[in-house]
């Protein structure tokens, strides 16, 4: 039975994508794992959530960071001057992790650092897509797209995409910080941030 460790409290650091927040699933272990002194529920740092009908491998999905997952396509070109569109499926229904002008500008700076001859420039953006102009011969286009995708994938919104809901945190707090159940039972207390 895998045991997932969830943060009890939000850390007292300036707000950023790297800040750990209450309810985020930090790590998962097998039930024979020997925890450190600061990792047991009594230490007050983590709640322990056991999933009785899943394997450790199957619960790894709840450890996924909330980064972009980009797909880049060419919209049009005039010779080596190309208009590329980047789409991410990691933007929530209400716009969490949405692309911003500042974010796209920062990414363009990094792309131009990695690939100076691309001369990338801003065209437009929506919550889940943006378009940039680049200059690259066809033979190097895929190499540049890989660089762009890598940079977009690095844009982080939160440490974890999944989290324990407030109702789940309250239940855990009232039960000594440790619960276990089937995936169906626990699912009511687990939330995918993309649905927010």
């Amino acid at each position, binding site marked *: 039975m895998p045991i997932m*460790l969830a*943060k009890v409290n939000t*850390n*007292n*650091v*300036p707000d*950023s*994508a*790297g*800040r*750990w927040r209450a309810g*985020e699933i*930090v*790590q998962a*272990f097998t039930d024979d*794992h*020997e*925890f*450190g*002194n*600061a*990792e047991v529920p009594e230490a007050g*740092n*983590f709640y322990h959530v056991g999933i009785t009908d899943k394997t450790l491998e199957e619960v790894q999905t709840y*450890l996924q*960071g909330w980064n972009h997952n980009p797909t880049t396509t060419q919209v049009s070109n005039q010779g080596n001057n190309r208009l590329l569109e980047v789409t991410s499926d990691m933007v929530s229904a209400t716009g969490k992790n949405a692309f911003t002008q500042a974010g796209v500008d920062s990414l363009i700076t990094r792309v131009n*650092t*990695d690939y100076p001859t691309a001369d990338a420039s801003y065209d437009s953006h929506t919550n889940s897509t943006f378009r940039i102009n680049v200059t690259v011969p066809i033979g190097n286009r895929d190499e540049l797209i890989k660089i762009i995708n*890598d940079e977009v994938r*690095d844009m982080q919104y939160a*440490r974890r995409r999944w989290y324990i809901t407030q109702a789940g945190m309250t239940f855990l707090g009232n039960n000594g910080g440790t619960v276990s159940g089937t995936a169906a039972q626990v699912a009511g207390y687990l939330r995918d941030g993309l649905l927010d």
Partner: protein
Amino acid sequence: MAVVTKTLKTSGGDYSSQVTWESTEQTNLVTDGDSHILEVGTSGSFESFTGNFTISGWTTSATNNITIRAVAGAEHNGVPQGGSGQGSRFYSTNYVCNMSAVDIVIEDMEMETNGASVTGIRHLSGSGKEAYIERCIVGRSGTNGGEYSILFSSSGVGSVRNCLVIDHSTAAKSDGIYYEAVGTGVCENNTVNVNNNYGVKTTNTNVTAKNVVSLGDTTNDWSGTFNASSTNNASGDSTAKGSSPVTGVVLTDGTDFTEPSTGDYSPVASGALDGAGDNSVGGNDIAGVAHNDPPEIGCYALAAAGGLSIPQIIAMTRKPNTPLITM
């Protein structure tokens, strides 16, 4: 200023995972007035800790910084994966140590990734942030590859000294050490053996390389324009940077290295690397043994004559509590 020390062990420590450590101890070290040390492993043992490991969201400075180091007596002694009987390793199929906007020192650790298209150690962003990697073994343990073993992309300091960087993956474009953007880049007494693409690469001129050997790469062993004070570097091809370059170094067992086919990159007496370094740098080698004068090129000091292998000599002579270099 207080020094907060936590332990990471497979049994009986504060933490059993580097990921849970980071998520719990993440703090503002500047307003706390502290520095933070994570001591990894158990003296006399080899312990490996698996996890996709990121350090970010902290507030640090050059003095209020983070140190991750093997606990005394659990250093790798220059031999990977517990081959010397002890060691402290981080392993991941993703980033093994992905650092963003932190000031950090990593000492005597082994860092391995087997991820596809991911970097092993990466230090990103953060104006003026400093990263020092000392006496570490960094690389890939499998055939997956792509990206870099070590990447610096911060405007502060990126320093690698007395480290062994190995990437024998068959995937294309796996670089060894890449200084993408640094205010000050330091590359001293490292041994870099990377199969694909570049061994040591920079895209700015703020990187000074001394006594570094890079070889085995399919593209170039060295790439970019290094600081003019770079000197006494070596390569298998003709690309070694700086003054007094040594070229044509070979991986043949017993010629320039003792037995690279089995992972022993210690220099051979009277080989191309023996005493070929610049003596403006030196200190202790990857196993904590003093470099000779003049020093060797690469991360290993030449062992005294006597017929024993380098790892055996190191294991017998290294004192467990020998003070470590601090920057």
